[in-house]
């Protein structure tokens, strides 16, 4: 799924229902890639990243199921997602992804549809939350190293005139590159940091799941057409 530069379909705005599709698509992705995520975590962590996200996203979809109609705003939805992740995942990824969505919720507030700039603002607030919680910097070999280039690509794509779908696809691609670029790094944060030099040569599991998160956004936007 490369970028679709030059596509004619222009996504104008993102509804709450599309955000739900995003979450649902991310849930499917962590189910599909769960074993892979856990394998990555086996190499440099504690072999639970897949199980953690499956448990979390199942809880999230359970919590938002049938509530799309009653969830008025994007902020309400994302807050529920954040709280559910915080209270169901645990480990490092629970508070980090949880804070991502809690901050994203604050950014979107009571909007019920988001334009491209609002989507970028939402993602940025989320990433800031992760940084506030986990203090990761670029090159620490964490989810930050997929998300940060992803969001930069999102912003550049918008600046160069692409629509929100195009931006999300650029973001997903850049996050995938960022994920791959974690392979040669020495981990400085999280559990993998205990391995020191031995963390070199392995992709960071959180970077891999974050790349899935941005790919899921692009998929949901594409489906929303």
């Amino acid at each position, binding site marked *: 799924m490369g970028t679709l530069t030059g596509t004619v379909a222009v996504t104008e705005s993102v509804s709450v229902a599309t955000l739900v599709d995003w979450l649902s698509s991310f849930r499917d992705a962590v189910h599909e890639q769960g074993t892979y995520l856990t394998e990555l975590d086996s190499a440099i962590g504690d072999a639970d990243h897949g199980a953690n996200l499956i448990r979390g996203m199942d809880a999230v979809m359970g919590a938002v199921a049938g509530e799309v109609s009653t969830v008025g705003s994007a902020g309400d939805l994302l807050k529920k997602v954040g709280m559910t992740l915080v209270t169901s995942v645990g480990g490092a990824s629970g508070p980090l992804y949880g804070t991502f969505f809690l901050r994203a919720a604050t950014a979107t507030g009571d909007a019920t549809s988001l334009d491209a700039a609002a989507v970028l603002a939402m993602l940025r607030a989320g990433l800031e939350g992760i940084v506030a919680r986990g203090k990761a910097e670029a090159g620490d070999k964490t989810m930050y190293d997929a998300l940060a280039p992803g969001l930069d690509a999102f912003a550049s794509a918008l600046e160069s005139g692409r629509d929100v779908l195009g931006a999300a696809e650029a973001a997903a691609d850049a996050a995938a590159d960022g994920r791959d670029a974690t392979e040669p790094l020495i981990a400085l944060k999280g559990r993998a940091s*205990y391995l020191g030099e031995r963390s070199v040569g392995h992709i960071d599991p959180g970077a891999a799941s974050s790349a899935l998160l941005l790919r899921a956004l692009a998929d949901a936007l594409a489906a929303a057409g």
Partner: protein
Amino acid sequence: MKKLINKPEDVLADALKGVSEAHPELRVDHQHRVIYRAQPKDHGKVALISGGGSGHEPLHGGFVGVGMLDAACCGEVFTSPTPDQMVEATTVVDQGAGVLHIVKNYTGDVMNFEMAGEMAAADSGVRVETVVTDDDVAVQDSTWTAGRRGVGVTVLLEKIVGAAAEEGRDLDAVLDLSKRINAQGRSMGMALTSCTVPAAGKPTFDLPEDQMEMGVGIHGEPGRKRVPLAGAAEIAEQLVDPILSDLDFQGGPSIVMLSGLGGTPLIELYLLYGEVAVLLEKAGVQVARTLVGDYITSLDMAGASVTVLKADDEILRLWDAPVKTAGLRWGL
């Protein structure tokens, strides 16, 4: 994967059922996955809660009871518990004198307890202080990294500080003591085999017959380095040397714990302890108290860790104070 379990996703819930059946002196809140003393401590005393991922038993649930913890929050296997668990436990155990959170230094544990502390303070006004243990000398400390892991010293801390809280010391004193204990303890672990996380279904890493992992933590992660398999005397050296070169244990009594990692039988632990004792004696460390057994484990991993805590008369007195938990018991 061969384990005495039903479904991997039910391991924690099922194990907690067994804990509540086996221990009438404990009360298990199955919804929040918190283990409490059935009989709460007296009003006016500082309460202690700890918690972390499961798979380290008897830590922490096995240390709930008179003279040690008031509650243990149980996370999924190798996954820190969530803040709502700690908030619930904090509210329940507070006897008006505040609550000490005992947290092992792992990014996940620290963040979840941090969120819990924020929430508990906002929601209930309970005063919460936190000690983060980070005694693992296998990991180089640095402000740029997650720092050292919290391992064996956590057990000793829960015992000693639990005794201080039982005596009625206030939260500041309890917090001070807990920080001092952490600062005076060092640990080092090694593994002969990987463990198998139930949800992963296979060993976390492969380790050839002629190799071992030095400097492992308690989450089945590979260690700092893979080295040739050695005899117990040589392994003892590789565990004790980094501990003794990290802190000076001369000039006072020490408490020593040799903990199995879950898959190593007691006969091997005693054998290894014999070698450790020789080295400590040679180095002039005066071992005043000893624990040998499974106290802080890593599922079914074969291996062991050594913890040495620099003590003093006061700490020894608190160590000897009565304790009545599933995992440690004396004087009562």
